[in-house]
């Protein structure tokens, strides 16, 4: 067993011949929370999409190892079943797909992929109720179509609900704080913190330090121009908040 949950080695990614990620190296040991901070357009979201397996990105070099397994050749659903979860910056609204139907399909698909039995409906309902209560999600929301008519905060809470139900070992949060007011931020952070575990790692992508007051990282990485340019402890986030990203733009240039 690897002691590292995630290892990204010299990852280069292009979109339409333009290089976006220029040699990302990142190691997250089991049980740790890391944060990636960087300004808009630095390639942070690309990194999260490439990890989750979105099409349209050309990986020209490098590897992504999840708990000892290279996941780059896997379909997005296989990566999910292997334990990766991406909380989207903009969760997708899908009219016509009931939230509960979706949750059950996702949970059972992952169980099936791992060779486990399907959940019974009562067990499924119980799990959803418990997780929903923790995240202050009411039943009405669960009865709607997936993310349709949800406010920004509700969408983010729904993402954390999915995470709580799917119990991934590696969680990636892409700008989860964007569009959240203080109350929603607190609820979402509580949900995330409740899932902290020695066998679960997290990567929090953000460009504000604010979220890191609620979800305390073990390591903070500064992302600029397609790679990590500096790593440090949580005080690095405070320093960034104070001095801005400009110093790193120069060092990267």
């Amino acid at each position, binding site marked *: 067993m690897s002691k590292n949950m995630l290892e990204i080695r010299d990852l280069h990614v292009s979109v339409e011949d333009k290089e976006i990620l220029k040699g990302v190296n990142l190691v997250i040991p089991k049980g740790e929370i890391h944060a990636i901070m960087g300004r808009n357009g630095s390639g942070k979201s690309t990194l999260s999409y490439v990890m989750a397996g*979105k099409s349209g990105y050309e990986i020209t070099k490098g590897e992504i190892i999840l708990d000892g397994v290279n996941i780059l050749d896997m379909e*997005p659903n296989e990566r*999910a079943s292997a334990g990766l979860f991406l909380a989207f910056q903009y969760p997708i609204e899908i009219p016509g*797909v009931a939230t509960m139907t979706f949750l059950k399909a996702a949970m059972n698909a992952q169980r099936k*992929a791992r060779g486990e039995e399907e959940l019974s409906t009562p067990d499924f309902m119980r799990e959803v109720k418990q997780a929903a209560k923790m995240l202050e999600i009411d039943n009405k929301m669960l009865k709607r179509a997936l993310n349709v008519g949800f406010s920004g905060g509700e969408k983010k809470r729904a993402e954390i609900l999915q995470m709580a139900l799917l119990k991934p070992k590696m969680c990636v949060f892409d700008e989860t704080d964007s569009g959240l007011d203080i109350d929603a931020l607190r609820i979402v952070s509580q949900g995330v913190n409740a899932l902290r575990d020695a066998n679960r790692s997290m990567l929090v992508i953000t460009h504000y330090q604010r979220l890191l007051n609620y979800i305390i990282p073990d390591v903070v990485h500064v992302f600029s121009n397609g790679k990590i340019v500096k790593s440090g402890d949580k005080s690095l986030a405070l320093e960034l908040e104070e001095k801005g990203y400009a110093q790193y733009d120069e060092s990267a240039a």
Partner: protein
Amino acid sequence: MYQALLDADAISIAKNFRSVGLPTRRNESYHYSDLKMLLDNIGQIATTATSTGEFAFNIANSFQLQIVNGEVQILGDKPPSGVVISTSNGGMSEPNKDIIAQLNSALTKETLHIDVSENLETIIQVDRCFEGKAALHNDGVEIYIANNSSATIVEVFDGSSEEHLSNSASKLILGKNAKATHIMVDISSKKTRHLQTVQYEIEQGANLHSLIIHAGSSLARTQLFANFNGENAHADFAGLMLVDADRHSDITIDVAHKVPNTTSTENFKSVVRNQAKAIFQGKILVAKDAQKTDAAMMHQGLMLSDDAQILVKPELEIYADDVICGHGATCGELDENNLFYLMSRGIEREQAKAMLVRAFLAEIFDPITNEDLYDILAGIADDWLKE
């Protein structure tokens, strides 16, 4: 067919048929469904066949009837209170002047009549079965919903796996303030060629929900003619074409708002894959005096392969000056972002696709409140997706 018409004593139609023949693309309403090209083998008139004794759908609290190879079979059940079932010799009275409707009327041996004079809870189901060897089938059903009465009628087209040609007709007359849900489902074998003519007469204050589903037949064409004859009436016309392989599906509808203050919606969807072809043609006529008409037409297509085709044509003919009349069409593929989102949660690509197609179809199935019926119809779509 000519000889069959002579045998049926339909001399003038026989003459007309001999000189004009089947409709071709020169005929506007058959522009994309040239029957002369598409129907290469018409076959002999179907002979009597016995019922298999089984119904295509089994809905709780339903009254079921069968027409097998054009002959009405009363299978013993007594009709519910407020329903009178009868038959008459020959085809539909006053058929539409369309040649296919004329041929149906001339060649149909027996017409089934369903008269409803209450608010009916029981669903009436009519199965039309095309049994035995490949043949030409003609049948007709006339439904009358009396003033202030209501009913749900389900017609199913099904049969043996042969190269049948079925030419079916349905007429539904809605009396004053009558209400009807009329659902027509073609699940005929994929060798069958299926033609249907539907005629609606909608009187004052009446309310109609019509739904056509094509999920069988190598060639399926439903033509629908609706007349608003009384004010304050409303109709929702809906349809779904599920088409794969090299099959051909066509829904052509012609709605005439003849009097003031009537409203209609048209909500049609098609899902195509392989080299399949789906066609929707919608005509709305608003007569000179039909002020305050509100009619909206929509067709949405979903392409699951690059080789499939969806052809859509609206036609508005408006003679009144104070009306709202709109038409729209969309056509697209499944959204990759939606697919990625579902897959990122562990759902396999094929299942994710099926979920999105079902989501696309929700508008068609959601208005169906009877749970059995909803499950059956949604199940037809699910099965089609799994094939």
